[in-house]
């Protein structure tokens, strides 16, 4: 078992401080700033690598990953309805959250792979973008069907112009245009400080996760079980797809982690307005207080082993 990456301890610190109600609160502007830096850094890093290696996104990969995003919500919905006995709106909301992705988890997995010296595909940030939206659309369809008075145009526009997509693709484009030499001047902020920024981000995530714990107690065993088992099952689906697409073991680890991760930014915002009758705390709590910690502490090392075993 590899030792825990130091950035994970910052998450634990935030969690413990939050549970103990310590006098610790980062202003929301800091959270925004830190997450903006992370998103740009992730995009830039991918763009620079793409400029160095060339190569685009193979069509089967594009289609396969989009399809994965659409399909992951279906079993999640079925389980939430059948076993969890959730109502249609709540089950669909949970399915949307778990089919979509968490950029924070992505940041941790690429940090983990970098520490372990494992290479992965430079275009990986594009996978994040591809996986973010389809599951949210699928979730909304599960809740509302095709009929209804939903303003799809506005909804899709807001989804595609969401902060994470704009900053990831923007960073990717800047990195790609500027290349390794062009980005040398901004390297200290975005690349050298990446782990430090990630540590601050995780400290805040720990505080946020701790704030969800009281809600977790109210929603009980199903949410906890779902939050722990869904990522494991979805990681296997992601890993198998990555293997079928011929990704490197590092790439398979990233795709498995993305499939395992659950959204806590894009999905809650979209579902809140598109499916108002869903209880927002239910999905958000599962995603933030159960699945996010599970993935970054236990999941990612497991998914790395899974990828290695598949490459076997």
């Amino acid at each position, binding site marked *: 078992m590899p030792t825990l990456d130091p950035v994970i301890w910052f998450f634990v610190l935030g969690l413990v401080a939050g549970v103990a109600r310590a006098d610790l*609160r*980062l*202003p*929301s502007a800091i*959270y*925004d700033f830190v997450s903006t830096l992370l998103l740009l850094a992730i995009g830039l890093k991918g763009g620079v690598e793409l400029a160095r290696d060339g190569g685009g996104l193979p069509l089967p990969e594009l289609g396969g990953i989009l399809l994965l995003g659409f399909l992951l919500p279906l079993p999640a919905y079925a389980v939430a309805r059948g076993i969890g006995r959730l109502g249609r709106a709540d089950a669909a909301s949970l399915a949307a959250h778990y089919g979509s992705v968490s950029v924070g988890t992505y940041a941790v997995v690429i940090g983990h792979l970098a520490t372990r010296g494992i290479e992965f595909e430079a275009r990986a940030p594009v996978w994040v973008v591809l996986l973010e939206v389809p599951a949210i659309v699928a979730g909304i369809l599960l809740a509302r069907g095709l009929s209804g008075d939903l303003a799809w145009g506005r909804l899709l526009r*807001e989804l595609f112009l969401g902060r994470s997509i704009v900053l990831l693709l923007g960073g990717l484009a800047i990195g790609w245009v500027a290349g390794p030499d062009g980005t040398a001047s901004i390297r200290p902020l975005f690349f050298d400080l990446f782990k430090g920024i990630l540590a601050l981000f995780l400290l*805040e995530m720990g505080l*946020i996760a701790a*704030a969800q714990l009281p*809600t977790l107690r109210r929603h009980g065993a199903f949410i906890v079980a779902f939050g722990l088992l869904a990522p494991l099952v979805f990681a296997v689906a992601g890993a198998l797809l990555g293997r079928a697409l011929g990704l490197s073991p590092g790439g398979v680890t990233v795709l498995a982690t993305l499939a395992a991760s659950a959204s*806590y*930014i894009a999905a*809650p*915002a979209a579902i*809140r*307005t598109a499916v*108002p*009758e869903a209880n*927002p*705390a239910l999905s*958000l709590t599962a995603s933030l207080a159960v699945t996010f910690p599970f993935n970054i502490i236990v999941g990612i090392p497991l998914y790395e082993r899974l990828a290695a075993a598949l490459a076997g």
Partner: protein
Amino acid sequence: MEQFPRRLLTIVTEAALERELLSEFDALGVRGYTISDARGKGGRGRRQSDWAQQGNIRIEIVCDPALAERVAARLRVRYYEHYAMILFMQDVDVLRPEKF
């Protein structure tokens, strides 16, 4: 100094609704509003503004009584059931009636 009576409509609700509400206001003919981040506790639990995602906002609109009624009626029908939202009105006096 002459003063003119108007209504101050204050809405405290989920930050997630901000964009949607602003387009509602435009459609209803609201000419101006002030929005600030807020935190507090209510029927749907404690809300903190330090994480924008779950934060609250407070919207203030100064307008004539008829428009205030229309906005309030619209919000009540459309949002009261599923969203954390409170709304209250007060009489206020303004100095430049043409602005409100």
